[in-house]
C-alpha cells in the first residue's frame, strides 16, 4: 500500500481531482455503454415477444370471425 491513510489515498498527493476525474469518467462511460447494450437486448426480446403475441391474437380473431 502506497498511502498512509484513506484521506491520503483520496488526496493522491494533491492530484486527487485529476486522478478521480479520470477514473470517475472512465467508470461512467464503461458502465453507460454496458447498461445501454444490455437494455437494448432486453428491449429487442420484448419487441419480438410482443409481435408474437400480436400475431397470435390476430390469428385467434380471424378464427372466431370465421365461426
Amino acid at each position, binding site marked *: 500500500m502506497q498511502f498512509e491513510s484513506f484521506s491520503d*489515498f483520496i488526496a493522491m498527493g494533491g*492530484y486527487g481531482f*485529476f*486522478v478521480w476525474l479520470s*477514473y470517475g469518467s472512465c467508470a461512467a462511460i464503461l458502465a453507460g455503454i454496458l447498461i445501454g*447494450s444490455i437494455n437494448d*437486448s432486453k428491449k429487442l426480446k420484448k419487441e419480438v415477444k410482443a409481435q408474437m403475441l400480436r400475431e397470435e391474437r390476430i390469428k385467434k380473431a380471424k378464427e372466431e370471425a370465421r365461426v
Partner: protein
Amino acid sequence: MWKWLHPYAKADRAYQLCNTLLPYFIVITVVCLVVGWVWGLAFAPADYQQKDSYRIIFIHVPSAILSMGAYSSMAIAAIVALVWQLRNAELAVIAIAPVGAAMTAIALITGAAWGKPMWGAWWVWDARLTSELILLFLYLGVLSLYHAFEDKKAAGKAACILAIVGVINLPIIHFSVEWWNTLHQGATITKFDTSAIDPSMLWPLFINIAGFAGFVGVISLIRLKNEILQREKHRPWVRSLVSRG
C-alpha cells in the same frame, strides 16, 4: 482447411458462438479490471517526477491502445464483409464501433485530465491529440452513416467502406509522436529495446490492458447478439429462442 468456419456465417450459429464466448470475456474483464484498478491506484509506487498524477496511465494507455485495436478489428470485419459478402461481418462492424468510440472518448478525457496538471492545458492541438480526435469522429461517422440509410444493405456497404478508408488514421496516430514535434510523449512500452517503464508499474498496466481488451470483447459480443436479433427478428429460430425465455 478453413471449412469449419463456414457454419458460423449462419446467424443462429454466430449467435450461439457469442453466447459461448461471452462468459470467458466477462471473467477476464472483471478480474483484470478489479486487480488492475486496485493495483494501479493503491499499490503501484508513485512516479518520481509526476508523483501520483501518473496513475491516470493505468486507464489512459489501455483505452488509447484499445481505441486503435478496436478500430483495426472493425476494419478487418469491414474487409471480410465487403469481400466475402458476409452479413455477420457487417453486423460486427456496427457492433464494435460504439465501444471503440467509448474507448476513444475515455482516452481523450483521461488525457485531458492528465494534461492539465502536467502540461498546464486541458487540450492542445498537438498531432497525437488531434489524430485521436479524428478517430472518434471516424467511429461516429461509421455509426451515423449506417443509421442514415433506410436500406440496410446499402448502409452496411457504406459504413464498411468508411471504416476501411479510416484505417489510414491508425499509423498517423501511432507515429504522430515521431513525425511531428508533439507535446505528447513518445512510446513507453512498445519500444523494441528495453521498456522505459519499471516492472512495478508495467504489470498493473498490462493487467489493465487485458481488462480493457476483455471489456471491448464483452460489449462487442453483446451488441453483435443484438444486431443479429434485430436483423433476424422474423426468423423462427429467434422466435423459439425468445419464447424459451
